[in-house]
């Protein structure tokens, strides 16, 4: 790793989510339920020059490691992201994200006539029917949604 690439201070322990499509970092935070109640430091790089391809976003979360379920959710909007586990300033594990086979309560159905958009006591649920490109299908109304639609409907 080139030290000069690091615009943000190094973290001792925590998680670096790298290679997020440019502009999607805030959505990633949303998917991870990182909001104003956060207790640890989170640094966000938006539109950072990437060595591999154009620009990217990057998120660094101190003192938190992600569960495999959380890592899977990231794949819905950032299919090429990598999740790096940092211990004592070093990357000790690196994962490619893989979408889950089903999701619940993360994305709203884009069909306005869907029963999950009415005032009913259910969370929207989807089958992931294709991963590359990502495609999900509402378990209720069977509407299919693609990446752009998914991004716009993250709860």
């Amino acid at each position, binding site marked *: 790793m080139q030290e000069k690439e690091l615009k943000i201070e190094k973290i001792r322990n925590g998680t670096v989510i790298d290679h997020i499509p440019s502009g999607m970092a805030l959505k990633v935070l949303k998917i991870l339920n990182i909001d104003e109640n956060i207790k640890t430091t989170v640094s966000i790089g938006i539109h950072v020059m990437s060595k591999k391809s154009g620009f990217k976003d990057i998120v660094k979360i101190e003192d938190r490691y992600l569960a495999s379920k959380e890592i899977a959710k990231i794949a819905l909007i950032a299919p090429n992201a990598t999740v790096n586990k940092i211990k004592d300033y070093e990357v000790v594990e690196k994962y490619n994200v893989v979408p889950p086979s089903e999701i619940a309560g993360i994305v709203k159905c884009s069909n306005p006539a869907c029963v999950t958009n009415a005032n*009913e006591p259910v969370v929207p649920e989807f089958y992931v029917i294709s991963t590359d490109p990502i495609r999900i299908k509402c378990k209720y109304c069977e509407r299919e949604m693609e990446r752009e639609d998914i991004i716009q409907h993250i709860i």
Partner: protein
Amino acid sequence: MLKGKDITTIRDLSKKEIFEIFEVAKEMVPIAKGKSIDLLRGKILATLFFEPSTRTRFSFETAMHRLGGDVISFADPKTTSISKGETLADTIRIVDSYSDVIVIRHSYEGAAKLASKFADHPVINAGDGAGQHPTQTLLDLFTIWSNLGKIENLNIGLLGDLKYGRTVHSLALALADFGANLYMISPKGLEMPEHITREINEKIKIKKSENLLSVIGDLDVLYVTRIQKERFPDINEYLKIAGSYRIDLSILEKAKKDLIILHPLPRIDEISPEVDYTPHAKYFEQAFNGVPVRMAILSMVMGVR
């Protein structure tokens, strides 16, 4: 075994289960014609039609009565607690506690699926908005099967507005599953949507045509749907299209002797009344078949067949 099963989409049923339904429906035909029996005596069907319906509702209720069961329903959804702001989920929980099986039609897509989550008893979808209507698909398939003895390898033409009618979408998918050869005959702009043809193409080849005359001689089944005026900005365009898709005796001169014609009804003028008196016309039988098919489904999900 369909006992206890919800039927919210045709995909809830395997091919084997669909054939089982056909066999039972066949036995139900004479009973549906008037020889009522006691198979469902003491059972209660709740019909929740939040959207208007005549054929579907009548045929479910007739089916239940012919089998000796009882029916509860509301006359007008505007007078129900839902209109007072109760959730569908709560309505279902309560009606479920009063009955043995629920049939629901609702404007929300996925409403039957939701109902099935909150009901312990089986839920049957009688149409959810522009969504699924699986018992219609089953009676369409049954009418083909009972007339022609099979579905596989038949040449089946779907005619008219293939874009907006979701029931014709689920029918097309089901026919593809059964290995029929599909001919899609629709005017420009009203073709079957891409996501459906993509799924069908994974199973079978589709023939597309704008012209009925050029394919009618190939067909074993012609399934006619309504072309709605509202789909055309120009009334003359509509009249021209509607005219060229109208089924009359002269176009039937080119048809196979055994061709059967189906239509989900109501028809407006897609099929000329003179066709009603030909052996091709099976649409009234198709509407009647709603009763034995729904008798089969009701008795099977309640575990008495």
